[in-house]
């Protein structure tokens, strides 16, 4: 069941260049699962903005989102302040099936604004005793965030496109050099990255998380469909059946 709630901002701060971390208070924070998103209304904007759940603090009844300024909506969101209320639909979409998987070693592969949901996933996996390795890609040093947090979860490798931090290049360059076997990989980021990663790891089991422009965000409008790999005449809705899919389920366009 999806709820519409008016949630007070407990905390908002810039954690990297044009990248903001927002902590929201909700009675149902604990219901949010890794991979799910929340759908945020903004004054003066017709459509809501989908943003992934980056962390949950069940005791404090809060959850965290991390977003980067991309256009007008995220710019407006960055100007909200502590105490302001956000009109949010939650929880939205599917999640990484952490409960039903049996695994020892997980590889998290995130790029840019695909990194946030992996943090909450990693934390959840760690709590289950899973060994976590993280490979995170950013454009450049100024954009890197949550490195320390990921390091708490396990080995963490950073790649930057311009080489200003960590390895120069793409997440795939790092993955290539990893030699430990993995049971599952989980990846989220821009589509070209998802393509490269799922290609590179085609022999592994994995889950991907997709992005698409959304209308309703709840599954009625067919704005956010993605064709099935087996039968491209059939499709799934990213807002309802996704954003998390098993790596071979859908066609990356």
């Amino acid at each position, binding site marked *: *069941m*999806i709820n*519409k709630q008016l949630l007070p901002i407990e905390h908002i701060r810039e954690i990297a260049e044009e990248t903001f971390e927002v902590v929201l208070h909700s009675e149902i924070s604990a219901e949010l699962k890794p991979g799910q998103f929340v759908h945020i*209304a903004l004054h003066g*904007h*017709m*459509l*809501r903005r989908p943003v992934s759940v980056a962390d949950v603090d069940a005791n404090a009844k809060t959850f965290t989102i991390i977003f980067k300024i991309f256009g007008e*909506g995220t710019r407006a969101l960055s100007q909200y302040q502590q105490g302001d209320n956000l009109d949010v*639909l939650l929880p939205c979409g599917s999640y990484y099936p952490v409960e039903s998987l049996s695994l020892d070693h997980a590889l998290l592969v995130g790029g840019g604004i695909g990194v946030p949901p992996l943090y909450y996933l990693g934390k959840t996996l760690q709590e289950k005793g899973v060994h976590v390795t993280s490979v995170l890609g950013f454009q450049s040093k100024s954009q890197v965030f949550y490195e320390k947090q990921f390091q708490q979860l396990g080995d963490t490798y950073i790649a930057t496109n311009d080489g200003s931090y960590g390895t120069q290049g793409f997440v795939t360059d790092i993955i290539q050099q990893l030699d430990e076997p993995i049971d599952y990989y989980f990846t989220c980021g821009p589509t070209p990255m998802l393509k490269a990663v799922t290609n590179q790891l085609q022999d592994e089991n994995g889950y991907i998380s997709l992005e*698409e*422009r*959304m*209308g*309703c*965000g*709840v*599954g*009625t*409008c*067919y*704005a*956010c*469909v*993605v*064709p099935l790999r087996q039968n491209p*005449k*059939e*499709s799934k809705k990213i807002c*309802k059946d996704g954003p998390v899919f098993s790596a071979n389920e859908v066609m990356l*366009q």
Partner: protein
Amino acid sequence: MNTTVNIPGLSLKNPVMPASGCFGFGKEYSQFYDLSKLGAIIVKAATGETRYGNTTPRVAETSSGMLNAIGLQNPGVERIVAEELPFLRTYETSVIANVAGSTVEEYVKVANGLNHSVDISALELNISCPNVKEGGVQFGTDPELAKEVTYKVKEVSRYPVYVKLSPNVSDITTMAKAVVDGGADGLSMINTLTGMQMNLKQRKPIIANQTGGLSGPAIKPIAIRMIYQVRQMMDVPIIGMGGIVTSEDVLEFLLAGANAVAVGTANFQNPFACPEIIEQLPKTLHQYGFSSVEDAIGKGHVT
């Protein structure tokens, strides 16, 4: 406050219904509120066969509006009748099926298919969907074609037929007259205006289909004008839509001449848009001195 409205096939407890394509077949929004609150529900378009629709991106945001080019994705009339419509049976509200097609034959096929459903009360003939390459838009801008498809559907359908007009025309009254001549029991207006938005970074239209249909508050003045013009000319039942967000908007449509209204894009911004409007409407009517919904219909006309 009496909010009932009676138009062909529809005895509505209130004049507010979600617009086609903005509410699926009701399931998703039923998790937010009891659909029995709604005056009626206009469900997503049905075509003769399954349609996949256009490639993504299918939507874009504009100032006070949005563009969409879903491309009539739907499982086809047969599956809609069998798998989707029965769900709505449990709610005390009327269902209007939205009929689309690329050819007159396809419209007739869909109307025939819908004759098998006991879950609907009327058809909305979508002759105006601008997002289908083959034919879709001609029906909506050519009065002769519009009249013909209306006539052919009326011939076979056991349900009242509301024809949904496209605003992308020079003279809406010509179109209205044509479909009424074709036998339409009522009109539904307006559908979306054809628009486009550029992706500056990618140097191409944001919507993969290039053009999309503009909806939302941006188009409300055009909807009000067209309904006013048609109501000025004839006394046909009109389901009005285009940019409705508040109960004041509903009153504006009633004054212009709509008998009932549909709410589309606003559902995306606020899933509770319809029940909230329905709750506010009696207060709004009262505030502006009306004693019922019927009392307000057409009252904005200068004589």
